[in-house]
């Protein structure tokens, strides 16, 4: 009985992470994107905490705390602050329409499922599902980065990709803490870098639209 609850809850957390990924894709407003990303990070934190409890692996609590504090709370607040501070246009600029990206997202989930199912036939259902979901989240993070123009949404895409990696890492038993720590730190570094980057771009071009950078480099005609 306990095992089914453990299974259901981690399944639910994983599904919430993936769903939040889709909400990121669906949103048209930057603030909505941040909120969806925060939801995703919180779900990742919950998944990690639950795994820590059910696998009896205390180091995962650290992962959960990192995800909760850094990505669930700090990152969205910081992003909000950047948007307000720089007075960025608050609509998401899409390179591909919302509908097609959502369909592409479903295609990616199917692809991830197809990839994971045969590889992990021998492993337990839980691991397999977590892997399928994590791979989907990673792919969807990529999709966000590809199909959204604004640099800020790209950062969000990058971080949600990282969420997928963490989800995969906590789902598999016996993953050492080092990995997550490094991942979290890389995230932090990336975040700071991007932050500085924004300011620099902003100073130079008065916009965060990457197209302007491209035209500056002479890539667009």
């Amino acid at each position, binding site marked *: 009985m306990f095992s089914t609850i453990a299974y259901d809850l981690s399944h639910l957390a994983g599904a919430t992470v993936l769903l939040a990924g889709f909400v990121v894709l669906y949103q048209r407003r930057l603030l909505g994107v941040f909120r969806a990303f925060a939801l995703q990070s919180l779900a990742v934190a919950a998944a990690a905490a639950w795994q820590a409890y059910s696998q009896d692996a205390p180091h995962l609590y650290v992962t959960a705390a990192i995800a909760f504090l850094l990505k669930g709370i700090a990152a969205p607040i910081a992003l909000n602050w950047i948007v307000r501070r720089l007075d960025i246009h608050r609509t998401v600029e899409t390179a591909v329409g919302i*509908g*097609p990206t959502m369909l592409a997202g479903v295609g990616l989930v*199917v692809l991830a*499922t*197809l990839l994971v*199912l*045969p590889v992990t036939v021998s492993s337990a259902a839980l691991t397999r599902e977590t892997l399928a979901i994590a791979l989907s989240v990673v792919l969807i993070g990529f999709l966000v980065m590809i199909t959204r123009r604004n640099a800020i949404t790209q950062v969000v895409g990058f971080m949600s990709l990282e969420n997928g990696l963490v989800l995969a890492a906590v789902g598999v038993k016996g993953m050492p803490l080092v990995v997550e720590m490094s991942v979290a730190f890389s995230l932090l570094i990336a975040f700071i870098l991007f932050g500085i980057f924004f300011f620099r771009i902003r100073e130079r071009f008065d916009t965060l639209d990457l197209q302007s950078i491209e035209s500056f480099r002479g890539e667009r005609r």
Partner: protein
Amino acid sequence: MLTLTLLGLLLLVALGLAAPFLRPHRLAPRLVHGLTGAMALALGVAAAIRLLAGGDVSELDLPFGLPWTGVHFRLDDLSCFFMAAINIASPMVMVFADGYARRQAEPARALAPLPVFLAACNLVLLANDAFVFLLAWELMSVATWLLVLANHRDAESRNAAFVYLAMASLSLLLLLLAFGAVAGGDGDFRFSAMREATERPALATVAVLLAMLGCGVKAGLVPLHIWLPLAHPAAPSHVSALLSGVMVKIALYGLARILFDLVGPPVWWWGVTLVVAGALSALLGILYALMQRDLKRLLAYSTIENVGLVVFALGLSLSFRANELFDLSALALAAALAHVLNHAFFKSLLFCGAGVIHEATHERDIEKLGGLVRRMPYTSLFMLMGALAAAGLPPLNGFVSEWLILQAVFASSSLQDNLPRLIVPLTGAALALTAALAAAGFVRAFGIAFLGRPRSEAAAKAVEPTGSMLTGLALLAGSCLVLGVFPVIGLKLAESAAHGVVGVDLPAGAIGWLFVSPLGSGGAAYAGFFVFLAILGMALGVRAFLGRIWPERRRRAAAWDCGFPDPNPATQYTASGYSQPLRRVFATSVFQARETVDMPPPGDARPAHLEVRLVDPAWNWGAEPVRRAIEAVTLRLNALQFLSIRRYLSLMFAALVTLLLIVAAGQQ
């Protein structure tokens, strides 16, 4: 029975050959249509009875035809079913044709090919070797070509007939190669030999692909459908009805015959290919239908949709079979066959109705119609029933088979391979979208053509037909209703045929007079009769009840229209306007729909103009390049026409030597 059937077909051919000589006589059309209809009815009823009675397979070999083979015929459950499906609807079309053809410009032109066409179609069903099959197939194509050419003075018709002939030849070529691949090196073209082969032929993959392409061309499967929306509108309406109700079905028969019977046990990707192709056809077909203004072209695209549904179900059945889930395979096959039968009735009805409208108004553009419901109450009632059936809505017959197909989709989780397990639900979603779009499409077709106020002089003066035209429509509409309210009639036939092919029955009591519960008594069920009865009883009851308590006071007045009614019929919604939201959502990428608005500046009296451009990807990326390539090659080869005799002879000599070399190489 087989001998009798063959004699009947011979009679039909003789009738066709005699028709040109009967021509001067006033009663010739009635005689030809009447005899053809009677013969078809006899064939169809006999086939249905034999199917239900569970007769044995009968075979007949005749010692003429190709030397060392002879010709072979066979009548089994599958051919019996298709014989019943195509021959029971066509007499009703013949009744319609009796009144309709007389009003055509040149009624006699369609007279001779008509019985030959029907005979050829039936002959395909009886063929038991590749030779007879292909001969009958080609006879069918030629007869169809003549039928499409009935209005030969019209350039559009000539073009349509030419495209059709080209595609039909392509289909023949592909099937010829397919049979060659099945027969293999021994070259035994008897179906019985192919059937008895113990192992899957070496070239099975090639054969299956060729058969899918060859039958797909004829059935109008996307992206091989390009001839269909041209030929259907060009032909006279009773011919369009036969094209959709009969010929396309023969193509589906060919597909089922080869894939289920001749090439041995299926591999998983056969089914998946058909499932994807079918779903694609269904979705694109109905989307395209939604964009059409020409009523008959719209119906032609809807035929593509329905062919897609049938092919989808066939593919599903093959997938189940590849996984050895024989009872589910039988269910999917029965669903496909039931849809074949139902489509024959409702599409014939709709095409005949389109013919009635064309006769009454000389218009096929629905944006120039409107208000016909007041001028032609009976026609509009029958067409409404046809539209409901084609939209797949209860309690008409289209719903029953679509429901069965969906039930088969829902059972797909028992498939073992991962790819089909995921592809079938996703394509099932495409099917659901198709069903919803079909409902929107037929609201549009019926609503714009029949309702509202007349948009042209011709529509305002339309007159209801009388006599046999209306009788034909009534018969077809009545059949649609009966098959929908008592689905057992059609489903029993389909079940028997599926039993004959798969060898497994549906669960006991799956198909009863009142309930259809395909997965056994505990599962999902549908009771068409109860639903129909409940709705009808409720509606009449409410009407009587309200009328008794508060006698109705009714007054006619001008339309309210938010206080600004405009008497000009041009202010009504048009077909293009109705489908504009759907066009924006779906067609912008698929068909590259572009709207150009020509808005005159203030003060200019010229009317504003909206133009919608659609591109059929199959034409642009499929047919056009091929056409250009052929043109380029033929321009080069044109030089061959002007050689000296010596050069011609040397060409032939070179060909001979090459063949001899090949033979010599093969002997080593």
